[in-house]
C-alpha cells in the first residue's frame, strides 16, 4: 500500500509553525517512514503533482495569492489542517484588522520615514491585499485545528500520528497552548 501523502504551506505566517514541525526532532525519521511529502517547503516541491491525504497550512490569508493557494490545497487535500494561531485566527498579521486598509497602505508605503520611493506598489504581478486578514476557515472548510504560536512539536506529532494510524489522540495539558 502506498504511503499517505502530505502537503504543507505557509501563507501569511512566519514559518515558525514549520520550524515547529521540524522540532519533532528524530521523530522526523519516523515521519518520513509514515508519509510521503508532496507540495511543501520541506521538500521544495512547488506544485501539486498528485492528490494528497493531508494538507497542513500555517498562516492566515492576507492577500489574493494566499486565497488562491489555500483553495488549491482544499482541492488537492482530503483533510485540511489549520496549523497555528495565524491560520486559526489571523494571528499577528490580523492586528491590522481594526485599521482600514487605506491607512495601512499609507503608513507602510507613504508616511513611513524609512521609505524612499513613496508609492503604493501596484504592479499586476503582485498579490492584491485583502481588506483584512482572514482565518483559513472563513475561506475554505477546515477539518482540524492545531493551535499554538507555534504549536508545540508534540501536538503536531500526536495529531499526525493519530490521524495517520487511527490511534486515539492523547493530548497532555502542556501541549495545547495559544502562545
Amino acid at each position, binding site marked *: 500500500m502506498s504511503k499517505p501523502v502530505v502537503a504543507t504551506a505557509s501563507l501569511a505566517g512566519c514559518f515558525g509553525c514549520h520550524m515547529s514541525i521540524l522540532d519533532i526532532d528524530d521523530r522526523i525519521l519516523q515521519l518520513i517512514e509514515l508519509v510521503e511529502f508532496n507540495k511543501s517547503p520541506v521538500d521544495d516541491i512547488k506544485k501539486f503533482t498528485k492528490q494528497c491525504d493531508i494538507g497542513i497550512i500555517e498562516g492566515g490569508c492576507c492577500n489574493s495569492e494566499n486565497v488562491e493557494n489555500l483553495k488549491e490545497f482544499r482541492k488537492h487535500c482530503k483533510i485540511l489542517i489549520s496549523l497555528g*494561531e495565524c491560520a486559526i485566527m*489571523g*494571528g499577528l498579521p490580523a492586528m491590522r484588522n481594526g485599521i482600514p486598509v487605506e491607512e495601512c497602505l499609507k503608513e507602510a508605503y507613504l508616511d513611513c520615514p524609512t521609505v524612499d520611493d513613496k508609492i503604493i506598489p501596484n504592479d499586476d504581478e503582485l498579490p492584491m491585499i485583502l481588506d483584512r486578514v482572514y482565518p483559513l*476557515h472563513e475561506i475554505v472548510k477546515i477539518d*482540524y*485545528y492545531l493551535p499554538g*504560536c507555534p504549536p508545540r512539536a508534540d501536538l503536531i506529532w500526536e495529531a499526525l500520528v493519530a490521524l495517520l494510524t487511527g490511534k486515539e489522540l492523547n*493530548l497532555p*495539558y502542556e501541549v*495545547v497552548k495559544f502562545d
Partner: protein
Amino acid sequence: MSDKITFTIDGKECTGKKGQTIVEAAKENGVYIPVLCHYDGLKPAGACRICTVRVGGRNMAACTTPIANDIVVQNNIPELEDMRKAIVEMLFVEGNHMCPTCEKSGNCELQALGYRYLMMAPRFPYLWPTKQVDASIPKLYIDRNRCILCLRCHRGVTTKDGKHIFGPVKRGDRTMITADPELAAGMTDKQAQQAMDICPVGALLKKEVGFVVPVGKRKYDQKPIGSEIQGN
C-alpha cells in the same frame, strides 16, 4: 437553627454555611465550578455566566445563587460543559485576543479556560470589533481588545472613599470599560498592581514592566485552571 447547610453537587454530599454562594461552598468542598467574573471577596456580578449550574432543573449562575438545604446541583454534565465552552468561545470572538502578543498569556484566566475546555478554534466566527486602547492613565493602560467586561475592576478597584475608578459605559455589544481620568491619575503603584491582578485577562496592564515570568513557569503553563480546587 443551625447555620450548616447540606446539599449535593453531582451526587457528592457537600456542606456549607448559610449565606454562601454555590461557587464558594463548592470550592470548600473541593468541587471546581469554572468562574471568570467571580473574584474572591467582591460582590458577585453574574456577568460571564460560565459558572452556570443546574439547580432543580433550572439554570442558575453559581456565583450569585445562595446554597440552601437539600438543593441538588448539577455541575459537571456534558450539556452544561459544552455551553460553558461556548461562553469561552464567544469571549474569544467578541474581542481581539492575540494570545501570542499578550503579556497576560500564561496567566490569563480566559486563556486557561480555553485550555481546560480544549478549545482548538471557536465554533463562532470572529467578530473583529474595532476597539480602542486607552493609554492616558499614568500607571497603566486599558486594552479593550482583550476586555471581557467581567466588571472585576469596576467592583474591586476604588478610591479610599469608595468611588469607582473604572466603570462600564455604553450598552450591548458596544459596552466598554472606561476610567475616571482624575481618579485614575491618583492611583498608586500598589493600586495599579492590584488592578492588573484583579483583571482576569490582559486588559489592564501596568506600564513599564512586562513579561517578567518566563514561559513554562506561568500560572497555567503546567496545570489547568481549577486544579488547585480539585486537587489534581
